[in-house]
């Protein structure tokens, strides 16, 4: 298979998980656990393989993005000529990055879940949901238009709902709590979806299309001038040097070296190139801007001579979109064009707005959507509760992939966010606020998964803030590294919970716990605790909470692999050099600092300050967790007897740990030992630059890096001081060293839920009650239906039935009948059977007829 056709494979990346989901959904109940998990894991792995092939394609085609038309779905939505929304998939560096994350981490989590979900009665359904989630997530990240993104967006929301409430059938109200958490997630996300929908409507109204890029469109025309992030010595880098060495030189000089240029811009190979070249020269003349068509023409010919010599067809390679009419461009290309032209007004019928204002509106609405999906203030409240789902779900959906959809969307729309100044500030404030808030709450949580959940919220805040300060590449970079170590941490916590639960059963004999008796690991009911149970009643087995960190301690001896990997994840998250978190977090910090410094943007300084504090908190709560879970003495019998998990679970942990260590090296901001020889510097940003126009990377800020690392170390030290040692928390309520109002505030999660309860839930309930009781029951039912309609109807019916029906109508009918009977009683006397009387009446008729006939003939005139 030639590499040119690799982009076509992107259809399979959705198809594999979808097929896996269908198989498990419909025949999974008849398969064994091994069969089910094998199908699901293989489906996910195949998707990963395809993603990797696409990655190879991009590397080999010089990162040339492609728009793929999958078969059978041509003209997905077509209403006349005005609404045309094709089912197209986008293969470019951003989507492939997301694909790799989703499928790679997804595959590992599938593998882990195969062990974790062992014995669950709905085993096949779980994997069907997981595969379905993968399919939808891949639709989300590979779609070439906002509607496909929306399809994926809602699909993953559905899967999230299904998986959070996966144990809806657990006994003793636990199932109720689980399903409540699922509903909460779903409903909160509806608010965000409203924003996204509004954004989509606005986009369609403004641009007349929803496509990101049209086939043949060049995503980042600026790359034609080379890139400073390109590998040193590469043509793009040389081009960049040449461009910037002599700024005064005419741009035409760049086109003087067409052979080199065409290499830098794009190879002419591949389906994409073929699509691009289908635009004929005549069209380029007709449609291109007058100033640039000559260039495009010249380049095309040069490229054709350089690359395709001997071939009959002219292989014109375009490095910009000047040859395409504005309405033929995707939304981002149109934006660039319209901004370049300026003064564009969007007409909304009764009113019209400047284009820039519309962009602010669109981006703000998209921010609302992102806040829902990516758990930002004010819509983050669902994510901690979503920990009610099985731990692999928490890892896959609610830490690594789905929650990053909002970040992905904003990065995808970086053209708009770059332009919308106001939105940038808002996004920064939201992200930074979320980061510090969630980090603060995390230090007050006892539930091991809940800490991680708030950590996730906090890290998502980092990413969103990075988008706000314009560090799109850093946002995706952090998304990527975070996916590794947060998945690692979640899976590690799952392993811990699993072990503690197992240890609990070992410690308390093998009697049934009211769970499924056939289940060798009847543990998950307690996993599903969606609240930070205080676990004050350890005497009762049924209330034993294996997720409460106060029931743990000293686990590092019992679970060495888990401990080691968890430690790596913690350090990576805390941003300890040289683990991946260090690089990504540092880039965000440096970027926000630099944007303040260089552009004088206040929100840059704010973001830097707040995120710096959040990073400190991150290190603190993570080390607190390490201390409480792994260090010290076991505080319960369960912790004492907790066994290490099976290999199916530890292998993914190890792989993720390796990833957590190495992931950061793909974006080295400076030479670093020998690693830059392997990975190069600024590799990731160069990679991202191919699809994210405004991605850039700050120069390495040694001061900030040192400062951040130092603060993290201080936080770790602080946490060890407070929680470390041989302290036992068993049986002592709230004996936390931080018995302070601040800690209580954190423990109470800043009263967000209570606030929402008072601010929204109660008024909502009150209003619903008012509507139901007063408006509906009293007014509509009591008054309107009963009094107006029923009584009025009855009254009218009364009138109609008594006087009208009985009197008039029946009277008429009866009267007719009576008259008829009376008449007939008289008339029938004539009908006496006497022939001569008949003859007489006949004669009467004859006389009448004769008179009638003769009278007109009478000659009146004489």
């Amino acid at each position, binding site marked *: 298979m030639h590499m040119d056709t690799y982009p076509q494979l992107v259809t399979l990346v959705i198809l594999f998980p979808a097929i896996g989901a269908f198989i498990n959904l419909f025949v999974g109940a008849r398969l064994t656990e091994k069969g089910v998990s094998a199908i699901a894991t293989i489906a996910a792995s195949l998707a990963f393989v395809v993603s990797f092939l696409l990655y190879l394609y991009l590397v080999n085609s010089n990162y040339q993005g492609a728009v793929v038309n999958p078969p059978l779905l041509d003209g997905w939505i077509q209403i006349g000529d005005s609404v045309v929304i094709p089912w197209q998939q986008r293969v470019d560096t951003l989507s492939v990055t997301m694909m790799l994350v989703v499928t790679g981490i997804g595959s590992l989590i599938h593998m882990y879940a195969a062990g974790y979900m062992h014995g669950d009665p709905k085993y096949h359904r779980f994997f069907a949901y997981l595969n379905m989630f993968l399919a939808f997530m891949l639709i989300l990240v590979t779609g070439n238009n906002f509607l496909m993104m929306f399809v994926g967006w809602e699909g993953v929301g559905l899967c999230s709902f299904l998986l959070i409430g996966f144990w809806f059938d657990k006994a003793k109200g636990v199932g109720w709590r689980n399903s409540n958490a699922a509903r909460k997630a779903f409903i909160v996300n509806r608010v965000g979806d409203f924003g996204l929908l509004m954004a989509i409507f606005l986009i369609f109204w403004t641009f007349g299309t929803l496509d990101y890029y049209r086939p043949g469109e060049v995503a980042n025309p600026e790359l034609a001038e080379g890139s400073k992030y390109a590998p040193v010595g590469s043509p793009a880098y040389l081009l960049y040097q040449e461009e910037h060495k002599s700024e005064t030189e005419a741009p035409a000089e760049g086109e003087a070296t067409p052979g080199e240029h065409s290499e830098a811009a794009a190879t002419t190979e591949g389906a994409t190139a073929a699509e691009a070249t289908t635009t004929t020269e005549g069209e380029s003349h007709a449609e291109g801007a007058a100033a640039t068509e000559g260039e495009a023409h010249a380049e095309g010919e040069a490229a054709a001579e350089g690359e395709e010599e001997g071939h009959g067809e002219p292989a014109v390679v375009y490095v910009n979109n000047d040859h395409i009419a504005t309405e033929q461009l995707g939304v981002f290309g149109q934006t660039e064009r319209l901004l370049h032209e300026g003064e564009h007004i969007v007409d909304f019928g009764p009113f019209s707005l400047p284009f820039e204002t519309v962009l602010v509106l669109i981006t703000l609405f998209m921010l609302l959507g992102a806040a829902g999906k990516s758990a930002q203030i004010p819509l983050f409240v669902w994510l901690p509760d979503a920990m009610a789902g099985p731990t692999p779900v928490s890892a896959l959906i609610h830490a690594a992939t789905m929650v990053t959809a909002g970040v992905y969307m904003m990065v995808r729309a970086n053209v708009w966010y770059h332009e919308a100044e106001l939105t940038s500030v808002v996004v920064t404030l939201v992200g930074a606020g979320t980061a510090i808030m969630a980090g603060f709450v995390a230090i007050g949580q006892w539930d091991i998964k809940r800490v991680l959940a708030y950590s996730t919220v906090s890290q998502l805040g980092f990413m969103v803030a990075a988008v706000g300060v314009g560090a799109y590449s850093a946002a995706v970079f952090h998304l990527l590294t975070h996916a590794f170590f947060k998945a690692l941490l979640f899976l590690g916590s799952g392993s811990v919970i699993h072990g503690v639960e197992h240890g609990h059963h070992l410690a308390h004999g093998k009697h049934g716990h009211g769970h499924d008796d056939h289940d060798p690991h009847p543990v998950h009911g307690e996993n599903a605790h969606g609240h930070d149970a205080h676990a004050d009643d350890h005497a009762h087995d049924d209330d034993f909470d294996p997720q409460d960190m106060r029931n743990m301690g000293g686990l590092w001896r019992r679970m060495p692999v888990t401990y080691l990997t968890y430690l790596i994840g913690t350090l990576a998250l805390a941003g300890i050099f040289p683990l991946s978190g260090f690089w990504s977090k540092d880039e965000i910090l440096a970027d926000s600092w630099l944007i303040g410094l260089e552009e004088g943007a206040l929100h840059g300084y704010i973001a830097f300050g707040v995120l710096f504090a959040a990073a400190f908190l991150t290190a603190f709560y993570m080390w607190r967790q390490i201390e409480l879970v792994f260090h010290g003495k076991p505080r319960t019998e369960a912790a004492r007897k907790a066994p290490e998990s099976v290999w199916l679970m530890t292998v993914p942990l190890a792989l993720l740990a390796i990833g957590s260590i190495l992931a950061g090296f793909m974006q080295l901001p400076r030479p670093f030992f020998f690693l830059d020889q392997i990975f190069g510097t600024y590799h990731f940003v160069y990679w991202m630059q191919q699809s994210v126009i405004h991605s850039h990377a700050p120069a390495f800020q040694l001061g900030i890096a040192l400062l951040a690392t130092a603060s993290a170390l201080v936080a770790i030290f602080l946490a060890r001081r407070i929680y470390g040692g041989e302290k036992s928390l068993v049986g002592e309520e709230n004996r936390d060293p931080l018995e302070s109002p601040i800690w209580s505030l954190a423990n109470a999660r800043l009263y967000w839920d209570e606030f929402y309860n008072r601010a929204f839930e109660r008024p909502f309930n009150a209003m619903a009650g008012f509507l139901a009781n007063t408006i509906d029951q009293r007014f509509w039912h009591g008054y309107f239906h009963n009094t107006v309609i029923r009584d009025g109807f009855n009254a009218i019916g009364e009138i109609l039935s008594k006087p009208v029906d009985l009197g008039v109508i029946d009277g008429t009918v009866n009267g007719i009948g009576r008259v008829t009977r009376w008449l007939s009683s008289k008339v029938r006397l004539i009908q006496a059977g006497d022939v*001569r*009387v008949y003859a007489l009446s006949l004669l009467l008729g004859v006389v009448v007829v004769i008179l009638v006939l*003769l009278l007109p*003939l009478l*000659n009146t005139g004489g």
Partner: protein
Amino acid sequence: METVLFGFGATIALVGAIIMLSSKNAVHSALGLVLTMGALAFLFLLLNAPFLAMIQITVYAGAIMVLFIFVIMLLGADKLDLRERFPVVPVLGTALASAMFFAIATPLLTNNIDLIEPPPANPQVRFVHAATDIGNNVAVTLDGALRSQPLAEGLNLREVSNFMTVAPGDYTVSITPEGGATLTSPISLTAGSVQTIVAYGTGDAPSITVVPEDLSTVQEARSSRVIVFNAFDPDISISMVNFGSEFDENDTATYANNIPYGTASETTTLIEGDYALAFVRGEGSSSVNPGIDNVLAREEAYELERDQSKLIVLFAERQVDGSIRASVDPLGVMTRPSFGGPRAIGIELFTTYMLPFQLLAVLLLAAMVGAIVLTRHAVTPVKQRVNVRRRVARPLTNVIASQTGHQVVDDAPQLPAETDQREPSGD
């Protein structure tokens, strides 16, 4: 004379009717009716309806009245008129009958009714192509005040168009030879007339004249009317003579004498049969066999059918060598049959009234079958009645009891419950 005959017939008819009405003896009544019918047959003759008169006598006076008398005798019903039970009927009947009589008779006697005269028939017209040199394929139209009506298309020499009925009025005849100039001639068509337009003569501009025709009934028995039209030569007048039979060469007669060019002869009535006709120059002679030189044309065995009206046109026919010779073109038309005769009625009956005639035949057949069925002795099938089990086993007293509410018979069994709710039937 006719009045006397009418008074005679009417008197007899009235007398017969009075006898029929007043006689106590049914046989006398029947004989009175026979008298009336005979008188009516006589009146039919007066009204020029001999066929119906015969039918009246044979069917009515013959067949029907015989049947009446036969039945009267059979039933012995000759003196069955009994007392009057409904005195109101004769009184009312007399009043109504008088009313009817006066309603019709009064306007009749006072001549107070518009007896509408029948409108005369529309004129009929046809075209005869006897013009020697305008060739074949002639189109003829009648250009009237309102519209043009094509009379003939593609008419060849010697040919005649069908009669066309048009509205009375003034017309212009337009004759358009194939590839030639249109010739026109005004004609006036009056109601009731039958006209034949003849185009004749040599050269490009033929003459046009109108010959009136008579299609009424030929009064003479087995005869036909013959008219001769001279269209041969402007300089020659012609005569049509009998060229003699096989038996006697001297048996000649002149039927049309000395007809000038462009005119028609008087109507001659000839008895049907084969004629040897000769058209001769100048005057015909009744005694002398015309010289062979004078004969312009001959018809050796011209068959003359009865009740026809013949128009014989003698016209010039162009020979191959360019010379002309006389040619005869006899055009026959069926005349009207005599009114009221069997032939006239037969023609109507078997053309216009064919369907009613057939229906009548079926009616007669049905009447025959009906009469046979009705008068047949009914054989009572005794055996079947024994085997039939009657389903209604409820005593009549029971029904009465249920309807009146009284026990008619003391030991009557009670009706089933549901029949109690049944409505009493009306009457």
